[in-house]
Every structure is written in C-alpha cells, then in structure tokens.
C-alpha cells in the first residue's frame, strides 16, 4: 500500500498548492476524473480477488472521500481569498462627505400651538377656528363692546375699505369672535335636535391683528382663546385650569396670581400673572418674586351669553385668551418678536423644531 499512500500524499500536496479554482479543478480531474489516477486504481479493483478487493475497495473509497473533502475545503478557501482580493480593490475613502438629506424644521408658533392643543386636549378641549376677516358684530358687539365705546380704542383695529352700505369689515383683533361662532353653532344644533345645550370646551388658536408695530408689537400675532360653557364651571375652575396649564406648558411648577381687570366680554374679569426671576440676563419662569402678565380671562359676561341666545341664569363658564408668540418666546428664550415673521432660514433653523418632535404628554411635551 505504499504506492497508494504516496499517491495520496502527492494529490493532497497538489490540492493545497492549487492557487485558484481552475488549478484546483485540474488537480481534481487528475485525481478523480474519468481517467484520474484514483479512478484508475478503482478500475483495477475488478481484476482483484474477492479477498484482495475486500481490503482494497473500502480503502480506495475512503481515499476518494478524503480527497473530495479536501478539494471542497480548498475550494471554499479559494473563493474567500478571491473575494478578499476583490474587496481589497473596492475600498472607498469613507471620510468623503455624504449626500446629505437635511431635515427641515417646524416654526416655534406651529410647535407651541401643537403643545397648547395637547395640554388642553388632555382637559377635553377641542380645537375651533374662525375667519381672520370679521364683521363688527362678531369682533365687538356680540362681545359686549358697545358701539363707539372707549374700550374699542384699546384694540388698534385694522379696518378694510368701507363697503357701499357704509359698513367696514375688520381684521379680528383677538380670537374671541370664535367664542361667538362656537356658541351660535352649539345653540343652533341644540335647537335643531330639541335638546339642552351640550357643554362647550374649546380652544381657538389663530392669527390676530392690531395696527401696532414696535419692538414688542407686530401687526400680526397669534392668540389662543379658550371657552368653557356648562352649568357648573365657576371661577375656581378657571384658576385651576390655567394654573395647571402653565405648569404643564413650562414643564415646571409655576406660581400664579390672578388680578382683577376689565374686559367687556367677561365679568368678573382677571389678568393672570406668572412668577419669574431674572438670572444672568435670562428669564426663569416659575421661580422668583417678580410677576409678569401672561393672559386675560374671566367668567363669560351675561350679555355675551344673551347675545348668542344662551340663558345666563342657567349656563355659565369662563373664557381666556393668551399670546402664542409670547408663550414661545418665554419658554424657548426667543428674544425678538419681529423675527418670527421674517422667514429667515438661519432663524428658522436655530429656533425651529424637529418635525419628529410631535408634542405629547407621554414622551414629554417638548422633547
């Protein structure tokens, strides 16, 4: 059997020495092909005696299996070598700049409107809307501003050109006309259905306009109105609702103070202050002994309820209005109101928000 051993050694060495798949195939054909050296030995089995064959047969078969296994292993190794060699030629300079796909940003007013809607939504407020161009009735008269009253002077109203009948439309000076529209619709719905007035809880965010322009006033700004009407909501609820709102919105405890004030459409009327401190030129909301005015509010005036056909002896509720832009400035440290409306890309990128930060209470209002 020395010859067989020698043959195996030779072929094994040839397999190991095959440098690519073609050479390996040649080795395989030379050993195991039809006329291969191992195949020829196999063919010689027929001429052997049964005794000889019983020994040589299994030995040759075992040799064939061993060689096949070696060839397969060598083939796998060669494939990997070839792949590695190819990959080595395909190397890129991964430090080259990417094809960037920059995200845009969400305007602070849009983001804060979403935040406000989430907080009040948690208290059951729906979002209502109304037109920016209003008539005198919805913007003033129904809100208990008597015609020609000094209270109207405080509103710096934008008027549109006079119509043929002498009337003039106005740009709404506050979001309060949405109160009127909401109540009128609710009253009509109840009348149609022949039922009691359903409780109302709405906020109405939107654009508002006053003929005023300086560092802290722009001719257009944003307000959010709130309105609650039912049979039991009193001023204590007003305090609780707005105090809760401030803490949720500013994401910290906020001290609050309600001062009597006057608005034609609420009685009693109040202004709400929140506590703050100034530290290193920054405003810290919620802490400190200083107060800043943040919103106006009050119990809906009986005249307003009457003007939309709601009985003030049965129904009651509160209303409030606050500036969205101001909330955004205070919470996010934005210094100048005028920049809000300039569409300056650098400002929008700096003060804007990722579109993926959809405000909600579960993951945190602002992150």
């Amino acid at each position, binding site marked *: 059997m020395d010859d067989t051993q020698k043959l195996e050694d030779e072929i094994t060495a040839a397999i190991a020495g095959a440098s690519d798949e073609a050479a390996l195939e040649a080795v395989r054909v030379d050993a195991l092909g039809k006329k291969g050296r191992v195949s020829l030995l196999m063919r010689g089995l027929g001429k052997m005696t049964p005794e000889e064959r019983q020994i040589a047969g299994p030995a040759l078969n075992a040799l064939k299996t061993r060689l096949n296994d070696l060839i397969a292993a060598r083939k796998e190794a060669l494939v990997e070598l070839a792949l590695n060699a190819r990959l080595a030629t395909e190397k890129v300079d991964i430090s080259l700049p990417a094809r960037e796909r*920059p995200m845009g940003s969400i305007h602070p007013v849009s983001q804060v409107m979403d935040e406000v*809607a989430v907080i009040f939504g948690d208290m059951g407020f729906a979002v209502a809307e109304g037109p920016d161009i209003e008539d005198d009735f919805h913007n003033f008269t129904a809100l208990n501003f008597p015609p020609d009253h000094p209270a109207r002077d405080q509103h710096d109203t934008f008027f549109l050109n006079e119509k043929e009948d002498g009337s003039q*439309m106005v740009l709404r000076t506050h979001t309060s006309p949405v109160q009127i529209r909401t109540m009128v619709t609710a009253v009509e719905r109840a009348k149609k259905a022949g039922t009691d007035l359903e409780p109302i809880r709405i906020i109405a965010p939107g654009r508002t306009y006053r*003929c005023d322009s300086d560092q802290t006033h722009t001719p257009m700004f944003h307000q959010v109105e709130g309105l609650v009407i039912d049979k039991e909501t009193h*001023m204590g609820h007003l*305090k609780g609702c707005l105090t809760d709102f401030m803490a949720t919105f500013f994401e910290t405890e906020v001290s609050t103070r309600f001062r009597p004030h006057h608005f034609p459409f609420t009685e*009693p009327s109040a202004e709400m202050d929140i506590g703050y401190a100034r530290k290193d030129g920054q405003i810290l909301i919620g802490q400190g002994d200083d107060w800043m005015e943040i919103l106006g509010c009050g119990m809906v005036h*009986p005249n307003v309820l009457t003007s939309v056909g709601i009985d003030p002896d049965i129904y009651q509720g509160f209303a409030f209005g606050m500036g969205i832009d101001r909330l955004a400035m205070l919470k996010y440290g934005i210094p100048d109101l005028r920049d809000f409306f300039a*569409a300056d890309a650098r400002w*929008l990128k700096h003060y804007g928000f990722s579109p993926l930060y959809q405000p909600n209470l579960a993951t945190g209002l602002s992150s």
Partner: protein
Amino acid sequence: MKFSISWLKEHLDTDASLNEIVDAMTMAGLEVEAVEDPAEKLAAFSVAKCVGAQKHPNADRLQVCTVETKDGVKQIVCGAPNARAGIWVIYAPVGSYVPGIDVTLKKAKIRDVESLGMMCSARELEAGDDHDGIIELAGDDWEIGGEAAAALGLNDPVIDFEVTPNRPDWLGVRGIARDLAAAGLGTLKPDTFGKVAGGFDCPVEIKIDAPEACPAFAGRVVRGVKNGPSPEWLQQRLLAIGLRPISALVDITNYLSYDRDRPLHVYDVAKLSGPIRARWGNAERFEALDGKEYDVTSAMCAIADDERVLGLGGVMGGTYSGCTDGTTDVLIECAYFDPKITRATGRATGIESDAKYRFERGIDPASLESGLDAATQMVLELCGGEASHAVMAGKPPTFERTIEFPVSEVKRLTGLDLEPTEIASILQRLGFGGEMSGATWQVSVPSWRGDAAGKADLVEEIARIYGFDKLPQVSLRRAPGAVKPLATPLQNRARLGRRALAGVGYLDAVTWSFCARDDAALFGGGSDDLVLANPISSELDCMRPSALIHLVRAAQRNADRGVADLSLMEIGPVYHNDSPDGQRLSLAGVVRSNPRRHWAGTRTVDVFDIKGDVQLALSAMGAPVGNLQISDQTSAYWHPGRSGALRLGPKVLAEFGEIHPGILAKMGIDGPLLGFEIWPEAMPARRAKAGRSKGAQNKSDLLPLARDFAFVVDADLPAETLVRAAKGADKVLIKDVNLFDVYAGKGVEEGKKSLAIEVTIQPIDATLTDAQIDVLSKAIIAKVEKATGGVLRG
C-alpha cells in the same frame, strides 16, 4: 392716571406703606404701571448744620466749613458763596452718589485742606434748578440727621396706574381711596367740602340749546376775586403728577378734575357778552387753549355767548374768555356733557384733554351741584371774593338703578362660600346700598358706578374686594368615557402636511397675512374688498391671495444673505373675498435650488422633485394620490410650460411648478424659483367607517413578473395618458406601471417620441401560462394604442 401718596391721604386714613398701597391697588384691579419715589434718590442725604466757615488758606473763593452731621462734626471745603455759619444745609457723606454731578464722593484734599463730604445745591440733588449756592433750609426747626427728602418736601411718591374704561371714578383720587378703603387699607375720610350759599343772583344767564349734548350746566359767578399763582401746596400737587400750574383759578379746576373726577371750567365774566349757552356748532372757528384753531361743526357742542364760541363743551375751553391775573369776576362751569358726542368731537378735532378723557367715560351725574360748591369754596379760600347763588340750566341725567341680586350668585360664579354679612359689608364699603336681606337682595347702585349693571358686576365687586387669591382652585378634568378626536380633519391634514414636508427639508415659516397690493395683483388678488383702510405700511396694505408672495420675497432676502439654496413652506390663510368662506387654508412652498458642488456630482432640483414633494405631502395628508389627475392648466403665476395641477374631478388639490419668470422679474426676484400650493380643504373627507380595523392584507406567494413595452406617440401626448391606459388594461392583474424612458431623436419620427414602460403583473390564484401572459400583453398594447393613437415600437 397719576396721583401722589400725600394726595391719596387727603381722602384715605391709612398707615400703609408705599408697597402695601401698590399691592392693594394691584389686587383690587388698579394696575400700577409705575411708581416714582423721589425719596429713594435722596436716601443718602441728610439735614446738617454749618457751624463755622473760614476762608481757605490757599484759595480765595473757597471756605473751610465746620458742619455738624449725623456722622459727627465734619470739615468740608465749600465753594458756595452762601456757605456760612448758622445755616441748615443738606449733607452728602463720603461714599454717597450725587446724581446732579454724577460723582461718588471720596475723602478729598482740596488745595491741601482735607474735605469730608459735601453741602449740596438743589441742582446737585436733582431737586431743582438752583445752583447759585447750597440749599439753605428755611427756619430753625430742623434736626441733624433728618431725611433730606422730607426736609425738601420731596417725600411724596407718585403712582401711575391704568384706568380701565369701566371705572371713570378712578380718574379721581377720592374714587381710588374709596376702593382702597373697601379693600381694607384704611378708612375713607369724610368729604371736606360742603354747601356754599351764594349772596346774590348769578349775573350771567345760562341757557341750554343742545340738551342732547349738554343736558345740564350748573354755574355761578364769584366776583371780586384776586387771581395769581396758586399756593405752594396746590402747585406741588399738580407738579407732582406732571401738570403745569397756571393760576389759582385754573389750578383749582385741574385740581378738582383729578381730586374727584369732576372737570370744570372758568370764564372771565368781563369777556362775556350776553347769556352763555350750550348749543350746536354752526360752521364757526374758534381758538382753543392749546393755541390752535378748530372748526366747530353742527355735530359738536359749543359753549358760546352772543359774540363767539367760547369753548368746545367737555373738550377744551378757548383763549378768549380764559381767566388771567386781571380777572376779577369769574363764572364757574360745572356741567354734564354726553359721552358719545364728547368722544366724537375729540376724534374729529384730535384734541386729547383731561376733560374730554373724563366726559367720554361718563361723569357722575350727581356731581354737578357738589362739584360747583367745591370749586366755589376753593375759589373763595384761595382768591377771595363773593359767590352768587348757584344756577342749574337743564337737568343732569337721573341715575337710579337697583339690581335684583340673588346672593347665591356669588357661590355659583366664583365657588366662594361667603357669609351674607361679609357680602353686604363689601358692597356697602363701595357705596352700594339698598335692601340686603333674604335670598334675593335689592342692591342700589351709587351714581358714580354706572358700570355696575347686573348681578355679575356685583359678583365681581365682591370677589375683587374679597380677593381673587382667596378663590378656590379646582382642576378641570376631561369628561369620563371615550375621547372623540378633538382636532378637525382639516387641522390634522395641516399638521401632517407640515411635518411631512419638514421631514424632507422644508423650513416651516410664518409670514404676514397682508402684502403689497401690487404683489397681490400679480398673484390674482388685490380686489377692493381686501384692501386695508388703515394699513401699517403700503407694503402691507392688502390681504394676500397667495402665501407664495412672502415666500418668494423671503427666498430672495435669504439669498441676499448668502442662503441661496433653501426650501420654505407656510401653512396659513389666503383670502379671496371678505366673507368667512372667502378665506382658504393654503400649504405653500418655495424652493430655490442652488446646491453646493458635490464631489460625486451635483444635481439641481427641478419640477419633478417638486411634484414628488407635493405627492408626498398629499399622501401624508391622506389624499388618494394614485387617483389624482394631472393637468397642465394652472394659475397665471406659474410658468405655462413647467407647471401642473393635481385634480380630483373638478377640485384642484394642488398646483406646482416654476413660478412665472415674468412675475419674478416684476417683483425684482432672481429666478428660477420652484413652488407649490396645496389646498387641504379641497381634499375629500375620509370615508367614515366603523372601528379601526385595517382589513386583511392582500398577499400572494406567487412571484410578480415584469414586461417592458415601448410605444411611439405624438410628442405632445401627456405620458400620464399612456400610463393610465396601460393600467386600465387589467385592473386586477396589473399592479404597477413604471414609465422609465422618454426618447426622441434618431430612429423616432419627427414630432413623435418613444415612451417605455415596465408593467408589473401580479398573479392572483395561480401562475400565469405563457398564453395568458400573451393575451394580457395584447390587451395592454391594444388599450394603449387606442388611448394614445401611438403604435408599439418594433
């Protein structure tokens, strides 16, 4: 409204500090805007006595003084000519800041002589203009170390606060005192003015010819007065709140105007001819006390005699009949002028006066007689003379109001549980009266509280005086049960569109709702009904027809600042007319593509990128993007060859493309600019369905297969026609048609183009046989050729 603390204390007996007064005002609804306390500035300075003065050894004009101060005896070098032994002075110690010369005093040696502090002049303390010498306090009744502010009569802080339009009574110090007393800050002092009996008949006849404008005019003459500067205390009072003292007679009217919200006027009787009457104007001119001439129209109330207009009733008096130092007989007017007419006159003339401010807010109609007596009493005291009987022409409006007040209203509206006695006490302290017992009270309203009209007003008074801080605080919870969506579908569309576009690079902007009318006209707007009558500037004088206007301008501004490659968007209103339905929500975007060079090649954005952005936004907003039709019919402000509209039936959901170069040129904007406008309101409502189930997924294990076709069609055929036709060949099996090649040129006839599509076929139940695929292919070819008039490319 300004008042000083000393003035307040004329009416309010209180020990409260300045801070306590300010706090009480704030919590009672008198919103303090500013507090000016001159004493603060003078806190470092004190009364001292100069006990010796000797000539400076090294300087002719200087003296070396010995001064007894709160810090002991000091040597002070002083250059004032009046520095001498025996005078009482104001001493500034070493370390104090002297405001008038902007210096902090240090220990000094002046010409080799030590000087420890300073004796100050009025100007050095900013307490007056005098700089001729140091302050000499009059008399000898001083104490060393006494406060300088008190010694100089400057210890009277002034408070400025906002008077809300409902409370004209706060335009008088007495009204303020009444509210503060009610809020527990002290007691309201009794009124010091009483009735004045006249000694003779009023020699001037008073008539009312315009009772709508001036329903009542009370007056009387005081004869033999001596006019001149008013006394020091009165001048101080007026100066403290920024009024200029004029003469005793005029100062008295100003004083009472602020003291009890009682405007008055005085006339020099010598200048009058005939009766004085309140009548309508008659196209006359008159010169008012501000030195200007005004037209007196028939809508204005004139106070006139037989010769001329003497004043605009309730607004401003005239120069002609004004009192001077030579006046000996004076007619005092104490009238009631109608608020609306006063206001209209003020607006027509542009006059802002203390009288107009008060009359337009409404004067206490019961104040005519008492106001006239108060004025008379002051004239007699300060100017002497002899008063006539008072006369009253006309009749002031009567004010009698009783409010039916179920006392339970307090609890219903505020949640406060108050004892009826407490409620009654608050109302009474504010001057309310009537029957306050039982379940429903009959509350009578004082004449100066015309604002209190109903139950809610009384509740406010009670809550305000009791304290808003003592109201309960109750959290508001949502109603139990399932929560219906609180946002409308439109609001959700807007939010989704905004966030989808921001996700692919758009910057969300907010721009003005108004624009320049010329710009509006370029974008299909600018109609008369949308023009502002009082714009803030001509750049913002018209409601915008499109949000593109400001975005286009902003793109240019950004480019001018070096940001030349950007995508801006805005969701906001645009306006087609002035009715509520004329306002539309728009989602608009503008893109200026100017990308930085990239090592792997640079591609600028074109109209098909914008089309993709629009489809992305529409899809995010829930629009059926696959069902939309594309059209090349767009608004005039788009490039006619490079813009499109996406429609659903007759409704246009979006327009996009290049903005018309001609319009950009007119606006002075560098092009090209791409843009889009999406109309969320035009989208169909989502079909209502029960439950939230998404239904079963339609999945097949069978492999989809693809077949390519190319057709030669007319060059102007919209590709969409071909794609749609191919899709329509079998709505079940054909899953997608992808147009992957557009070719014109060699091999394709002039006026034609070749469009190549890849059709994806998804077998449903079983693998398709070759025969079946052949049938389907033929159907596709037939359908496309019929729809497009093209032929399969061989």
